[in-house]
């Protein structure tokens, strides 16, 4: 089982993702330079956070035309799991792999803080070890994380169970006060229709060990490992 962490010029959470998988969870993990044209040997691809190409034009907009992204599209079509975190999520929406788009945070600030998210779908390769409605405490760090999607697409996503995480209060209640950036319906993470691609704004790779004030992020990577080992996906 091999994980690949894509490195775009300007990625800055690539080392954290590598550390989470390789050092904390003891998985075979490699960096993938954005010019790579072959992803054949990987079982899961991680698009990490950061500021790919300086986030010029829009976050993720230039990265989507990187050579590796054609291969990522093929990887997605083959059904293998792909997780995009923060800027990686932006790359996934810009490339049309996931629905929606990102706007500037509604308070105009770059926000770096721990937030609570509620697991809305446990029937994905990324949340199969979560309990139903499990609340995770995971940090966010973004200035353009205000998720937007049109009404009709949102309706289809809800019908297909594609909303995976919502920002919530500590007790799990989804409230306006617990929405850090104005994201539509507190959406913090979504998957594609097939369920093999997850995009999330919070950074699970930043909370893998107690020394980092919590390890709620580990359940997401452990779920992927469980899935790749043939573990059941709920429901």
């Amino acid at each position, binding site marked *: 089982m091999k994980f690949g962490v894509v490195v775009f010029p300007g990625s800055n959470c690539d080392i954290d993702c590598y550390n989470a998988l390789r050092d904390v969870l003891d998985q075979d993990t490699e960096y993938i330079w954005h010019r790579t044209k072959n992803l054949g040997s990987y079982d899961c691809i991680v698009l990490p956070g950061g500021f790919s190409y300086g986030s010029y*034009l*829009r976050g993720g*907009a*230039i990265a989507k*035309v990187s050579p590796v992204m054609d291969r990522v599209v093929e990887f997605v079509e083959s059904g293998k799991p792909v997780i995009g975190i923060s800027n990686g999520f932006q790359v996934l*929406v*810009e490339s049309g792999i996931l629905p*929606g*788009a990102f*706007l*500037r*945070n*509604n*308070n*105009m600030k770059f926000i770096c803080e721990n937030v609570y998210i509620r697991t809305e779908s446990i029937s994905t390769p990324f949340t199969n070890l979560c309990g139903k409605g499990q609340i995770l405490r995971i940090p966010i760090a973004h200035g353009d994380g205000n998720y*937007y*999607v*049109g009404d009709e697409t949102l309706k289809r996503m809800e019908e297909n169970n594609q909303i995976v995480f919502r920002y919530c209060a500590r007790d799990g209640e989804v409230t306006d006060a617990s929405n850090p950036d*104005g994201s539509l319906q507190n959406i913090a993470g979504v998957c594609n229709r097939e369920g093999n691609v997850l995009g999330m704004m919070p950074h699970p790779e930043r909370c893998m060990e107690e020394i980092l004030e919590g390890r709620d992020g580990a359940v997401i990577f452990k779920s992927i490992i469980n899935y790749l080992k043939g573990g059941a996906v709920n429901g």
Partner: protein
Amino acid sequence: MFYAKVYITLKKSIADPQGNAIKEALLSMEYDGVKDVRMGKLIEIKLADKSSKEAEKRVRDMCDTLLANTVIEDYTYDILEVQP
């Protein structure tokens, strides 16, 4: 040779927090007549195309595939013929 000016703006239905911040600043400077401010982007492109029709097609393709995100943004453009 052609010179394209591409204007990208948030769709009318999308809130524009930057535009609002600018509006508040202008009002605080006592420009009382300011009713609304929307902020967008201007991208200038020089093109080697031979005809304006060709240039326009190319610019529209660029907008749809990279320059604008049509989920949240609208675009317009002006294309001028210029001497090389």
